[in-house]
């Protein structure tokens, strides 16, 4: 019964993603800049770290970055939707309103997975994804990391009224989540406070799982066990969905949303 409405939301997301070419291109260019510019730049300063070039260390981090940005931006469109016709269509549809949140999380995660796959094709062609990659674990990492990133985006969206302060979201959510993870450096090498922050950042576990999957037989040091990574990602995603659904149901049932949608109350 619920499968068809969810499919509708997923299909809309994919259609929109393919139509917004610039969104797709920048989703590819951003991680490649990090890999080739930052990776090369810091690589010359750092040299080899624990026996591998810095660029190699960065590969799981930039795959994670694509998912983080892809999922966050897709989930944040919920804030636009709240003021637009799409949300009007969805809140009068015969489904409990928490399904709208779940469908949006799933569609944001789907967008992120597709972007990550596209990026990995490019990376494979450039020789950055080796034959020793654990593809089953990689698939698991893509799915759960995307879901967790979509969860971060949905939580942000459910506490945000407008995207006017998008710069603030960028500065106070997306950048800290990215920088305070293991994307750019091993978590265990960080000073204590930063290590503590990285440990409570759910995205850290996504990157760690990606390191497990792409680590070329243990070349890249990982910070946690793969089961810890999966458990934290799943747990966080469920919690994020629960909190966002609770916020969203309150908004739809107790007025603010309908007033935003219709612009008046009389």
């Amino acid at each position, binding site marked *: 019964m619920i499968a*068809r409405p969810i499919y*509708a939301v997923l299909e809309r997301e994919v259609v929109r993603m393919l139509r917004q070419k610039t969104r797709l291109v920048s989703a590819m260019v951003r991680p490649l800049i990090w890999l080739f510019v930052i990776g090369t730049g810091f690589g010359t300063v750092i040299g080899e770290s624990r026996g591998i070039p810095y660029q190699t260390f960065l590969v799981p981090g930039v795959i994670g970055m694509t998912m983080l940005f892809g999922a966050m931006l897709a989930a944040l469109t919920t804030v636009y939707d709240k003021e637009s016709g799409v949300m009007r269509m969805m809140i009068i*549809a*015969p489904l409990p309103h928490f399904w709208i949140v779940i469908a949006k999380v799933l569609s944001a995660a789907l967008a992120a997975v597709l972007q990550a796959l596209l990026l990995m094709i490019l990376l494979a062609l450039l020789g950055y994804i080796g034959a020793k990659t654990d593809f089953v674990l990689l698939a698991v990492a893509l799915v759960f990391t995307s879901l967790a990133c979509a969860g971060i985006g949905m939580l942000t969206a459910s506490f945000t009224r407008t995207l006017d302060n998008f710069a603030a979201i960028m500065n106070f959510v997306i950048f800290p989540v990215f920088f305070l993870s293991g994307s750019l450096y091993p978590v265990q090498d960080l000073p204590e406070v930063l290590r503590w922050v990285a440990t409570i950042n759910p995205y850290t576990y996504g990157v760690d799982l990606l390191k497990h999957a792409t680590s070329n037989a243990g070349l890249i040091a990982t910070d946690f066990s793969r089961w810890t990574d999966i458990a934290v990602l799943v747990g966080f995603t469920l919690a994020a969905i629960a909190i966002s659904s609770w916020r969203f149901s309150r908004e739809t049932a107790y007025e603010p949303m309908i007033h935003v949608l*219709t612009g*008046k109350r009389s």
Partner: protein
Amino acid sequence: MIATAISDAAAPAAISAAGLVKRYGSTTAVDGLDLQIPAGQFFGLLGPNGSGKTTTIHMLATLVKPTEGRVRIGDIDVSQHPVQARRQIGLVFQESALDRTLTVRENLRFAGRLYNLSPATSEQRSAQLLELFDMADRRDKPVATLSGGMRRALDIVRGVLHEPRVLFLDEPTIGLDLPNRRRIWRFIEHLRARTGMTVLLTTHYLEEAYPCDRVCFIRKGKLVDEGQPQSLVAKLGRHILEVEANDLDALRSQLEPDLGDCLVDGDIAFFRYADEDLSTLTRMQTETARLTSAWRVRRPNLNDVFMWISAGKELNS
């Protein structure tokens, strides 16, 4: 209040509301409203701005929780089973409920899927409905490129795609020109004839409410009067006299003793006149000729009912 529940005792009510109240902090938007709308009826909910029409529709359509009172759509309690209730209703908001970035076809397929319709069913129904609006050739156009009238038409197609038993239309023709408004009314008429759906309408264009089986006027969230449009109009009397004058006070002191209270709008005074025979009015016209700049006698219409109710005056004299 008036003959409500009795009107169609045999047919089950499609929409019923009892003791409906909505308070926002210290403001009361809807204040103890009772409605019984039989299946198949074309019902108009009318009233001035801020009278509580939209809040009422939102409560009936499960989108706003009533502070007090109960709503049923058919035999479904809306507060207890909002999802089942939403399956039975279609809703056209004042503002469009469409995705501007998608095409007409994509929008309707999206809407259909939300109602668990298969793509084939959506496709077939939307083809028929778009045909009625002469929009079959627009199916692959993005919604953003449609004219206001077409977008509104598409909104209505979207609202009835799942064949609801009850259709809520909140100011469906607002901002549209006359040909587009007529087109939309022909469409609604056609749908009603074909499916027998119950339609609840709010509108500011009162001539559009004239075809309603029954209208209900609300003011400050309370029901003021209801009935067939013709019988409400008849309550005002046989004629309305409109008089323009520079010194309205002088005019009123001359006419009000005979004609009763008037309604003033700018420099025009509106009087009700119950008799068919106009000879008294003609005599009054000559007596006040030096005060007046225009003197018009005409039949009353729903706009007059609306004005009288908005001014807080009783219709029965």
